[in-house]
C-alpha cells in the first residue's frame, strides 16, 4: 500500500488563492449543506469503509479537512485520495449525518471540471466507458467482455468472447440480441441523450479530461444530430 503524502504545501506550484477558489466551488454545490454537519472524529465512517482497508485512505480525514476548511490539505486530497473511494456510501452511517462519500462525489466533479491533472490520470483507461455511455446509451455492452480487458477473469472471458454472437441469440428476451449495446435502443432515444449531454454542459467536462475522446464523440454526435434535424443544440 502506498502511503499518502500529506505534507504541508505539497502542491506548492498551486497558489493558495487557487486552492481556496476550488474549495469555494465545492462549497457552492447545491448538495453541500446536506453532506457535512461537522465531524466528531469518531471514525465510524472509516470502520465501514472498504477503500480504507486496502488504501491509505480515510473518509474521516476528508470530512475533517473540509470541516476545518483546510484548503491546502483539501487540495492534496482532491489531487489523489478522492479517486480511491468506492462510492458505496457505507459511510452514510455517520452519527453526525455527514456523507463523506457524497463530499467526495462533489470534490471529484470539481476536480474534473477544473481539469486537475490527477483527475486525468485517474480516468486514464476509462475512455471506452465514457465513449459507450455518451454515444450508445448503455454504459457497458456485451462486446466489452474481451480477454485483454479482463485478463484476471480467466478463461471464462475467452469462452464468452468466442461464443458472443450465438449466446446473445440464445437469449429469450427479444431486446437482448445485441452485442454493441446491452439492449436494443431506438435512434430517437440516443438523440435525446445527446441533447441532454449538450444542454447540461457534460460535453465541456469531457473536453477537460480527454480532448481526443471529446473530438471523436463530437464528430459522431454532430453528424447524427444533423441527420435528425437538430442544427442548434445550444441551451441556456
Amino acid at each position, binding site marked *: 500500500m502506498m502511503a499518502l503524502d500529506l505534507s504541508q504545501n505539497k502542491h506548492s506550484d498551486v497558489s493558495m488563492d487557487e486552492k481556496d477558489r476550488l474549495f469555494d466551488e465545492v462549497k457552492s454545490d*447545491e*448538495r453541500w449543506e*446536506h453532506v457535512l454537519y461537522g465531524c466528531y472524529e469518531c471514525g465510524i465512517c472509516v470502520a*465501514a469503509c*472498504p*477503500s480504507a*482497508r*486496502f*488504501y491509505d485512505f480515510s473518509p474521516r480525514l476528508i470530512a475533517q479537512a473540509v470541516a476545518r476548511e483546510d484548503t491546502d490539505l483539501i487540495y492534496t486530497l482532491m489531487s489523489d485520495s478522492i479517486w480511491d473511494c*468506492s*462510492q*458505496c*456510501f*457505507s459511510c*452514510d452511517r455517520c452519527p453526525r449525518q455527514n456523507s463523506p462519500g457524497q463530499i467526495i*462525489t462533489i470534490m*471529484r*466533479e470539481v476536480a*474534473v471540471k477544473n481539469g486537475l491533472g490527477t483527475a486525468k490520470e*485517474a480516468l486514464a*483507461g*476509462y475512455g471506452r*466507458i465514457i465513449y459507450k*455511455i455518451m454515444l450508445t*446509451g*448503455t*454504459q*457497458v455492452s*456485451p462486446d466489452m*467482455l474481451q480477454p485483454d480487458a479482463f485478463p*484476471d*477473469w480467466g478463461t*471464462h472471458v475467452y469462452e*464468452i468472447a468466442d461464443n458472443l454472437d*450465438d*449466446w446473445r*441469440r*440464445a*437469449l*429469450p*428476451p427479444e*431486446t*437482448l440480441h445485441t452485442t454493441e449495446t*446491452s*439492449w436494443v*435502443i*431506438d435512434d430517437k*432515444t440516443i438523440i*435525446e*441523450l445527446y*441533447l*441532454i*449531454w449538450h*444542454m*447540461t454542459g*457534460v460535453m465541456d*467536462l*469531457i473536453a477537460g479530461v480527454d480532448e481526443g475522446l471529446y473530438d471523436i464523440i463530437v464528430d459522431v454526435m454532430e453528424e447524427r444530430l444533423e441527420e435528425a434535424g437538430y442544427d442548434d443544440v445550444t*441551451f*441556456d
Partner: protein
Amino acid sequence: MSFSDIPILKAEDRKFKADPTKAPKSDLREELFQLEKEGELEVQRVPDNYMELTTKYGRTKKIPLEKTWHHKSCGQCGHIPGYSASIFWLNRQFGLDYHDPTDQTSCTAWNYYASATSNPEAQAAVAIRNFAAADEVGYFPIIHCGTSFGHYKEVRHALVHQPELRRKVRKIMEKLGKKLIVPEEIVHYSEWVLAMKDKIAERQTVDMSMITATVHPACHYHKLVEEDAIYDSEIYGAQRTAIITGTLQKLGINVGDYSTWYDCCGFGFRHILVSRDFSRSFSVQRKIEVMIEEVNPDVTVTHDTGCVTTLDQSQFAGKAHGKKVGLPVMSDSQIAALAMGAHPYKVLQLHWHNTDNKAFLQKLGFDTDKLWAEFQAEIKEIKDGKKQYMSWEDADR
C-alpha cells in the same frame, strides 16, 4: 477466538417495530404530491394491482405487480443476461402485463460514480427522460439495477428539495418534448420478487430445503435514501433489510449469517474497470472467504449488477492465490425462477457466470450434462441457420 465463535445475530429476540409517526425523516411522497398541487411537476401513480410492503421506519411502500416498465441494467443485460431474463420469465409465468422498452437508456450512474464526468442536471435529466418514456406508454418503472435504484432515489430527493434543479430539468424536458414526471414510488425488481414470494412458493417445483445461502444486500439498495428500503420484523427482527432473505426463506432455503454482511462487494465503480486489484482483494477477502469460513454456503445470493459481477468474477484470481473460493453467485430472480423450474441455461443463462455452479445445481437434483446438451442443441440450430434466435417457447421446452 474466531469470528464464528461470536454470536453475530441476536435479532431473533430483539424485534424492532418501527413507528412511522416517529420516523426521523419526512415522507418524500407527501412533498411530491404537494409539489404536484403547486404545478411544479407531475407524479406518476402506482397502477392498481400492487402490494404494500413495510419500509425502514414503518411506512408502507406500494409495489406494483403488473403494468411494469422494466428499466433494465446495462451490466446485467450485457454481462449476466440470465439475471434479467429470469425477471422477465417470472413475469411471463404469472401472465403479468409488463413492458420491455427500447426507448430506455442506462441511468449513467456507473459512469457518474466512477468518473464524475457528469453533473446533477444531466443525471436528473437522464432519469426523468426514462420516467417520462414509461408514463407515455402507461407503464410504471421498475428498476433492475441496485445502483440505478439508489441513484434515482437520490435524484428524486434532489428534485423535491432543489427548485433550481427542477427549473433546469423542466427546461430540458420541454426541449425534448417530455414531461417532468416523477414516480410515486421508486421500485427495485427485488422488492417485486419479495412481494411475489408467496405466489412463487405456491408454484415451486424444486425442493430447496437442503440449500444454505448467504445474502449480500447491495449498498446502493439499503444505504442510499435508506428510509425507502424494505424491512420486516420477522426477518432479522427488522434490524436489517428483509430483501432477498425474505424471498429465500420462503423458498425453504436456510440463510446463514456472516460477520461482514454490511461490507460492500468491492465493485467500486471505477475500480472494477481500471483498478481491479482492489475489487478482487476486497471481494475475496472480506466477502467470499468470510462467507465460506463462517457459513460454508452452497450459493451466495444478491440483487445488484455490480455485486453479482464482482463477487463472481473476482473468485478466479482468488483461486490462483490459493484463497478459499468456489462459491456460486446468483441473483434472487434467478433463484426464484429456478425454484419454479426454469431451465438453468436457457433461462438462468448460468454459463455467463464464472464460478462453477454445477455442484449447486446437482445438489438440487439437476442433471447438468443433459441440461447443457439441451442448450447446446439450441445453439446448434442457431449456427445451422435453422432459427435466428431462441424464443421464450424454446426456453420452456
